[in-house]
Each structure stands twice: as structure tokens, then as C-alpha cells.
């Protein structure tokens, strides 16, 4: 019939009009990301004060990183990392570092929202990496201060 297509189109938009919007009111609402969703990595610790990391500073993660964004230096005489930095400006969240770690020292988190004013802000040191919480909604008390810096 003449104009049937027009009526069909009008119906479609009217249905959309009475349907709930699909947009999420970010940052007031957040989309829950899947449990396997990749975010920042977390360095696991066995002791808080003095800090003892599970990481031994072996550097396997650094040598396996396809983007070369991890740099590790071992402490002399200790099985601990002296320097452990991740440059998130380079990281592509491939998870290889977590998979290759023989000591299970790295953990996946769901933190994916991070901003910085310069490139240096995306280079995270080991202390900052240890602060990352596993779940995005699970904010630690120390974290807001850490971000404010």
C-alpha cells in the first residue's frame, strides 16, 4: 500500500519514544564490566609494613610484555622488586604479564578509568600498583588521596 513504509517508520520511532533510553548517565551511573574485563594490574603483597611483595623481581613479566611497558629491577640480595613501574600510556591490557608470572604476584583488577595531566601520570610505581583494588566499586580509603596527588 502507498505510504505503508512511512507508517512503519513512524511506528518504529514511536516505539523508541516509549522505550526506556539505553544511555547510561556517566559518571552518575556506571556500566558493570564483565568479571574478565581487563583493567590496571595489582601487585600483591604479603605484608603491609614493612612492605613485602609477592613479586621477586625476576623480570619475566617485563621480558614478555609486548609493549615493553613494564620495567623491573631486583633489590640486591633480596627477592623483592626495587623498582616496578608500569607505563599505562603504553599498556594495551593484554594480561600476558599476569599469565606468565610464576609467583602469582600480579592480579587482574577492574579499574579502567584513570586520567592524568601529563604522560608521567600514567607511569605507576609499585606502591601505587599495590593500591589498586580488585573491583572497580571497591574503593580503598587510601585511594582518593593517592589520586589527588
Amino acid at each position, binding site marked *: 500500500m502507498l505510504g505503508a513504509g512511512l507508517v512503519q*517508520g*513512524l511506528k518504529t*520511532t*514511536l516505539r*523508541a*519514544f516509549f522505550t526506556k*533510553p*539505553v*544511555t547510561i*548517565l556517566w559518571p552518575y551511573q556506571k556500566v558493570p564490566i564483565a568479571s574478565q574485563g581487563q583493567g590496571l594490574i595489582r601487585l600483591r603483597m604479603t605484608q603491609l609494613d614493612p612492605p613485602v611483595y609477592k613479586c621477586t623481581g625476576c623480570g619475566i613479566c617485563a621480558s614478555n610484555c609486548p609493549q615493553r611497558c613494564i620495567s623491573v629491577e631486583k633489590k640486591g640480595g633480596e627477592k623483592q622488586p626495587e623498582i616496578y613501574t608500569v607505563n599505562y600510556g603504553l599498556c594495551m591490557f593484554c594480561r600476558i604479564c599476569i599469565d606468565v608470572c610464576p609467583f602469582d604476584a600480579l592480579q587482574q583488577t577492574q579499574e579502567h578509568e584513570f586520567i592524568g595531566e601529563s604522560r608521567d601520570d600514567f607511569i605507576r610505581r609499585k606502591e601505587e600498583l599495590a593500591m589498586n583494588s580488585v573491583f572497580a566499586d571497591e574503593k580503598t580509603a587510601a585511594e582518593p588521596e593517592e589520586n589527588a596527588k
Partner: protein
Amino acid sequence: MVWWIELLWALLKLVIAVMFIFITALILIWMLRKVMGHMQYRRGPRHHGPHGIWQTIFDAIKLLGKEDIIPNGVDRWTFIAAPIIIFVPTLTIFAFLPFAEKIVATNIEISLFFILAVMGISAISLLMAGWGSNNKYSLLGGLRGAAQMMSYEIPMVIAAMGVVLMAGSMNLTEIVRAQTKIWYAVPQAVGFFIFFTASLAEINSTPFDMPEAESEIVAGFNIEYSGFRFAAFFLAEFVNLFIVCALAALLFLGGWQPFENPVYGTIIFLVKTYALIFFAMWVRSTFPRFRIDQFMDFGWKVLLPLSLANLFITAVIVLVVDRLRGV
């Protein structure tokens, strides 16, 4: 009355009319953004005030506060005059638009004729804006606007003539009074369709937004305009939407019928008008733009013959009925 009281009274009426126009335009812009948003599964503005109702006011303030840029090489006076001229018909028409039985600023015998005639002036304004901007896209937009308005004005006026024949008057108040028994949307269904379609084209609303056509000629006639001059075009577009919908409500949907009371009458008239505006926005967020040649074909080869046939059949029926009644 003393002459200066009369002058003040006239000025006051003018201020009220201008305020009404501005508020209507702001409400319509907000409404369009809301309706269009929800039709695209979005939400539209929502931050300022309940459901974002203040958003357009802030937008207007922002536009008025912008630097007034007149580009080098424009035809200066044409460029400046165009946004003023587009407001002239808009403002004038409001003087002749009845809102209820006695709520009309100027009641003349040929108000419908006058409104339809004055509406044509906006074509000149588009042409001036297009020519004065000295920009190829603007010129294309202006010429398209002029062509579009001229070709769609004819079916629109002829469709309105069907109503005039039935009512036997060109006075809008008389036309509404004649619809006590039946709204003209029923016997004049074809005329209503033609009138509404042609008036959408007349006000450059999508799917007939040839003069603007963002994806083809950037923004058509208003490329070079910014700040308050752009705001003038923008506001005029939305006030024209109100005007054509109000006109359609008066001619075909019985205006303020069934209420004689001015308050209820105005309310029901505005309800009808806003229902039509909603429909126009619905159409606007549904259909893609016509191609220019299809658009001209539609105007001259479909709407014009249809409106002529409608007028002819209406005339014959009115003549026969009048003879039978022995008038």
C-alpha cells in the same frame, strides 16, 4: 484616550507578544530535543532544572553573549537585514492568530489570507541571507529555500482554500465557528494532509530541510551567521513551526472548539497545537531528507494536482449542497 497612553498600551502588547514568541521558541527547542532524544533511545537535556527545562534558556543566553562576527566580503546590509526580516512575518502573524473566541489582537475579515501572504516574506529573508553571506553553500541554501517555499506555498494555500469554501469566510474566528458540528479534518482529510505536509516544507523542517541540509551544503543559508543573528534564525524556525501548527489546528481541528470560554478555549487550542507540533517533531525524527529533485517532483507533480483536485471536488460539493438547500 490620550495618545501616549495608547502608544504605551500598544508597546505593552508588543512586549507581551515578543515575550510569548521567545518563550514559545524556547519551549519548542527544549521539546524537540527531548522528543528527538527519546525517539533515538537517548534522554535529551537533563541537567539544568527538572528534565533539563532550563537548558535552552542557558543556550539562548550563551548565543546572545557571543561575539558578533560579520565576516569580510559579505554584502553587509543584506547580511545584517536578513535575520531581522525573518522576524517580521513571524511577529506580524501573531497579531492575527486567534487563541480563543475573543482572544485575538486584530480581527480582520481576511486574516487567513493575510497570514498566508505574509508567511511568504520569510523566503526573501532566506534568499537575502544566502546571497549576503557571499558563500557558495549559503547561496545554494538560499536559492533552495526560495524554490522550496514558492513551490510548496501553492499547494498549501489551495488546500486552505478548501476550508474557506466550506466555511464561506476568510476570517479565522469565523472558520472556527463554522466547525461547531464537525472538524474540517474529517471532510477535508486530503486537504489536511496536503496543508500539513506543505507547511512542514514551508518551515524547512526535516524531511524537507533542503535549505539547511547539513550533510550536503553544511548549514545552508546560516553558515556565516553566529551569535544572536544565528539565534534569530533558529528562534524564527521554531516560532514558524508553532504558527503553522496553530494554523492547522484552527483550520482543520476546530481551534478552540468545543469551548466558548476564553480560558478553556485557549488551553484546548494550545493542546491541539502542541499535539500537531509533537507530530511534526515525530515526523522530523523519523524520516531522512528528500533528494532535491524528488522533493520538487513531490511538490509539483503530487501535492499540486492533488490540492487542485481537492479544491475542485470541494467546490462542486459545496455548490450542490447550497443549491439543494436553496441558498
